[in-house]
């Protein structure tokens, strides 16, 4: 290795270090701060690392705030949203991948367009619809909205995966006496499961992140999801940063786990347009 290349490598490691400090540093510091005592958090006692591992921020979060309620609400909404979206998207994605019909291209164009819909455009009409259906301030109403918002991406993802599954296998299954529906579930779906996993992750992450609709449609504390719930704690306890940061850390854990499992599909999730 020449000196020049060695210097180049050193530069690259330096770059990696800078990137880590910039992009991971603030998050890491927040995790550390969530384990600090109030005096350390307020800066009365100056310390970078927590003096002792102070877990009371976490226990307070679960004992004295409504955080557990928000967590359960988010979990329920996320699970139902994901299940419904996947079911509908598998059927639709299969049809789009297997049949070519007039309007197919137009449908795809609208699917992509829907990915970029301004949430604000939908806020007013959706508010009116939910009001008509008497579903304002309900988790069911919120779930219906989330399913539909997740659908374009999920359909797109499933369609792309079904395109890579050879049609011959399904045809063989049909000859063996399967019907179309069984052929879809038993033969075409298993190889397309990675797509379903990525689409499912998209649903969960979106429900976890969504703030605008949850903030607009839900107005009672017992129906709040995590994003609005955590944000409401800011107003309530302006100075209790320990509890807020602990809440942030707890809220981030499920998302980090999902992304860790889906490392390999990261580029597809990004390319498909996860940006909540």
């Amino acid at each position, binding site marked *: 290795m020449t000196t020049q290349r060695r210097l180049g490598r050193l530069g690259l490691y330096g770059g990696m270090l800078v990137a880590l400090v910039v992009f991971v540093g603030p998050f890491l510091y927040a995790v550390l701060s969530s384990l600090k005592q109030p005096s350390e958090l307020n800066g009365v006692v100056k310390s970078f690392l927590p003096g002792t591992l102070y877990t009371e921020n976490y226990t307070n979060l679960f004992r004295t705030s409504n955080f557990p309620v928000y967590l359960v609400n988010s979990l329920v909404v996320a699970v139902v949203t994901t299940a419904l979206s996947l079911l509908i998207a598998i059927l639709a994605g299969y*049809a789009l991948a297997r049949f*070519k019909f007039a309007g197919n291209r137009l449908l795809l164009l609208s699917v992509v367009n829907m990915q970029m819909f301004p949430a604000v455009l939908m806020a007013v009409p959706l508010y009116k619809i939910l009001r008509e259906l008497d579903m304002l301030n309900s988790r069911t109403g919120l779930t219906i909205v989330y399913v*539909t918002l997740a659908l374009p991406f999920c359909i797109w993802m499933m369609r792309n995966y079904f395109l890579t599954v050879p049609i011959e296998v399904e*045809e063989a299954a049909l000859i063996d006496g399967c019907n179309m529906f069984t052929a879809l579930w038993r033969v075409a779906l298993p190889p397309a499961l990675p797509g379903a996993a990525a689409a499912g992750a998209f649903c969960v992450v979106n429900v976890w992140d969504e703030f605008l609709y949850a903030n607009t449609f839900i107005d009672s504390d017992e129906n709040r999801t995590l994003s609005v719930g955590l944000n409401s704690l800011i107003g309530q306890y302006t100075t209790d940063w320990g509890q807020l940061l602990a809440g942030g850390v707890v809220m981030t854990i499920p998302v980090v786990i999902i992304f860790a499992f889906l490392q390999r599909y990261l580029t597809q999730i990004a390319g498909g347009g996860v940006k909540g």
Partner: protein
Amino acid sequence: MTLTEVKHTPAGPSPAAASVRPLRQRLTALSPFLYLLPALLALAGILGYPVLDAMWTSLKHSVPTDPSADRFTGLANYRAIFGNGAFWTALGHTGLWALANLVLQLTLGFGLALLMHQKLAGRALFRSVVIIPWVVPSVVVAVIWRYLLDPTSGPLNQFLMSTGLTQEPVLWLANQATAMPVVILLSVWKWTPFVAVILLAGLQAIPEELHEAAMIDGAGLWGRLLHVVIPGIRTSLTLASLLTVGYSVNNFNGIWLFTQGGPIGATETLTTFAYRKAFTEFDFGSAAAVAVVLFAGLFIVSTAYFFSVEGRKGRKL
């Protein structure tokens, strides 16, 4: 509507083509629509209808408290918002916000993607942790940074004051001069890893031989960057640019959770402006008009995105 199956086999009679027949026999022209029906119903009800309703509402006087008071007022809402200085300020902020996000995220994202692509020790770990800002929910990003930037207990201000760089704490998010640059930087912090992941996919698709060939031709680092890397990731660059513009213009959380468009409108974009019209001033008609203007602009962006993505796939449908 006409219906044919997608051809997966070469034209002409072949064993595979013969086995297509049972499938075709079982298909009526209706069956694909049966598969699509649940999706179509959901999309029509919760996406299609609301868009039309938003357009219709933008032509009406409409308030949330009294649905029966709606009345058609033609283009009055549009005239009102176009005559409102705050709308033009918000439009200017949207432009600045989108442009700054685009330029910064693409430049930094490209650098980060190059780092993620290097064959260095610890690459897998680096790749999985450096995307953390993208993965962390927006509300948590807001909590973290509002703590870090807090005037009294925030570590940044304490550091600045203990070193004597400032005498008074800097109200990063409450000062008209700093609020916009700060929310832009925070949005760049959150979304740069996302852009990097898209560009990384492009980098990985460049064949190694191209680099070797360029090196044999005597191309240096810059030469390879200009003639191999950048042309090689052109599609990813287009995709990332369009997504960044589209999502930035739509980004509500990135502003609302930090400043709610303030102080005194310093970070008000069309998105927060429309939201405020609807749910603070309770003027659904004007809010819908702003949203429709926003939508029209984004429609152009996402249509361009569609053709760039489909073009890359060789128009295979």
